[in-house]
């Protein structure tokens, strides 16, 4: 039987929704027993949140002053130690999980499966390759621990309503001091989070300047949407790096995605193909974005956006 350990992602004393998505993935494996491990300085609040996720049996709380920041080199030996009692170790396919999980796998002497989009059994999974242009079915060996990351856009967060036990766990692992946290700069936007928002408005190179990009924020505010951007818009400095959507940015699955002045390069489309409804606004009727858009409008964004905002009231 599968015994699955999920590494919780959290910051500022709050659990990241990616954790409940990992639980959702684990729950699709029949008969799996699911535990969550919280690595923090004082993980009580996060562990209490994790304990409420349906389907979780036990939450392990690993408190250590060294866990103040998520440094992969510091967390990995602790995760590897806790993993001893499990058949599977999952983390989210966010920058946190992508940084940490391969290091855990290597310490355990096994490979890793990245970006699980579906489980077809405890050792059989589907995942995207080539920027999502191919989906592969992969079988993992049953006699080894399986370390994997879960593609969060493929799963709806497991609901609350659970009541798992919380246990403090003691982990003995020697932790390195060769890696030190310096600072983190996060633009406090007060806007919905790109990775979880039900609506997203994204702007591309066509916006032309950081100043012009404000009309994307303005439309997003009108719709209560998060803001995204193409790589071209981020590279040009119109939008912050954490807004990039796509193969190498964030993979998202909102109810509504509005692409404004974005051509629809494969690397961008990878990030949005699980969106429920895609709206494209582009002045070029031949732009590839229209091949995937549910609703397309050809025209100049600088006339369309103000009109649209007005029409939305």
């Amino acid at each position: 039987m599968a015994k699955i350990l999920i590494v919780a992602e959290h910051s500022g004393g709050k659990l990241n929704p990616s954790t409940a998505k990992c639980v959702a993935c684990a729950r699709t494996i029949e008969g799996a027993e699911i535990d969550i491990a919280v690595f923090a300085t004082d993980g009580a609040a996060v562990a209490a949140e994790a304990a409420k996720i349906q389907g979780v049996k036990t939450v392990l709380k690993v408190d250590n002053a060294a866990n103040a920041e998520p440094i992969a080199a510091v967390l990995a030996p602790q995760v590897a130690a806790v993993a001893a009692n499990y058949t599977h170790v999952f983390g989210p396919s966010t920058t946190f999980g992508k940084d940490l999980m391969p290091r855990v796998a290597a310490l355990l002497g096994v490979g890793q499966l990245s970006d699980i989009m579906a489980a077809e059994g405890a050792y059989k999974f589907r995942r995207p390759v080539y920027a999502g242009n191919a989906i592969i079915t992969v079988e993992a060996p049953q006699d080894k621990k399986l370390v994997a990351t879960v593609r969060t856009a493929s799963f709806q967060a497991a609901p609350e309503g659970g009541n798992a036990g919380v246990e403090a766990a003691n982990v003995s692992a020697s932790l390195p001091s060769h890696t030190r946290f310096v600072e983190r700069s996060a633009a406090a936007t007060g806007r919905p989070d790109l990775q979880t928002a039900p609506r997203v408005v994204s702007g591309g190179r066509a916006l032309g300047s950081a100043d012009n990009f404000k009309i994307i924020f303005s439309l997003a505010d009108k719709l209560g949407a998060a803001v995204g951007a193409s790589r071209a818009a981020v590279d040009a400095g119109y939008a912050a790096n954490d807004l990039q959507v796509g193969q190498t940015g964030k993979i998202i699955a909102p109810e509504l995605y509005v692409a404004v002045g974005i051509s629809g390069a494969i690397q961008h489309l990878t990030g949005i193909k699980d969106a429920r409804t895609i709206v494209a606004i582009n002045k070029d009727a031949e732009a590839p974005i229209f091949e995937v858009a549910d609703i397309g409008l050809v025209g100049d964004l600088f006339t369309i956006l103000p009109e649209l905002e007005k029409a939305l009231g």
Partner: protein
Amino acid sequence: MSKILVGLKRVVDYNVRVRVKPDGTGVVTDGVKMSINPFDEIALEEALRIKEKGGATEIVVVSIGPADTQQQLRTGLAMGADRAILVQADAPVEPLAAAKIFLKLIEKESPQIVLLGKQGIDDDNNQTGQMLAALWDRPQATFASKVELDGGKAKVTREVDAGLETIEVDLPAVLTTDLRLNEPRYVKLPDIMKAKKKPLDTIAIASLGVDIAPQFKVTRYEPPAARSRGVMVKDVGELVAALKNKGLV
């Protein structure tokens, strides 16, 4: 003498629209343009800039791949690397095996920095650098968008979901690159000529004594579920009506 090791993976060029073979056994690679993984070009560019600023004395580019990978290594030499090593492998290796091979080369070359891409755009694994750092028992600074060297340390700004994070690592260390670290230089014709004379050593993968047996078995390749083309609307009025119709506004 401080050395930088750079990984250059040979991958299907990023402009190619990759297609699954009709029999589901793989993707079409016959006659398809192959290039250096874009993140690895960024890694090499960063290494060159570090060397130009006096932070390194030698840049060695390394690839694990078939004999044809010499092309990508020659391009790396033309960009400015001093020497190339091809670990010849006729079948692709998984990231853990690649990390073990890099570790063998590290034991021989003793680099201060190993610069890899954050992910190969073929398998989109995003694993090798992290695994190598674990096996080497050294720091990792992944998804780097800025690298500042200061004696035996590196201050690295990383692109994370929340924004930008800065960490400090002791060297030697493994760094992996993100898109905005730099813009790689173009190769000039005279450099291509010069690169022909630079050393390119080929090592048989078997001679390294690394277990390269794959752990995972890919049983099927499928094209992704296609999204169908939707409707085109004429103006903003129709757009709003269509959104209302779907209950989205």
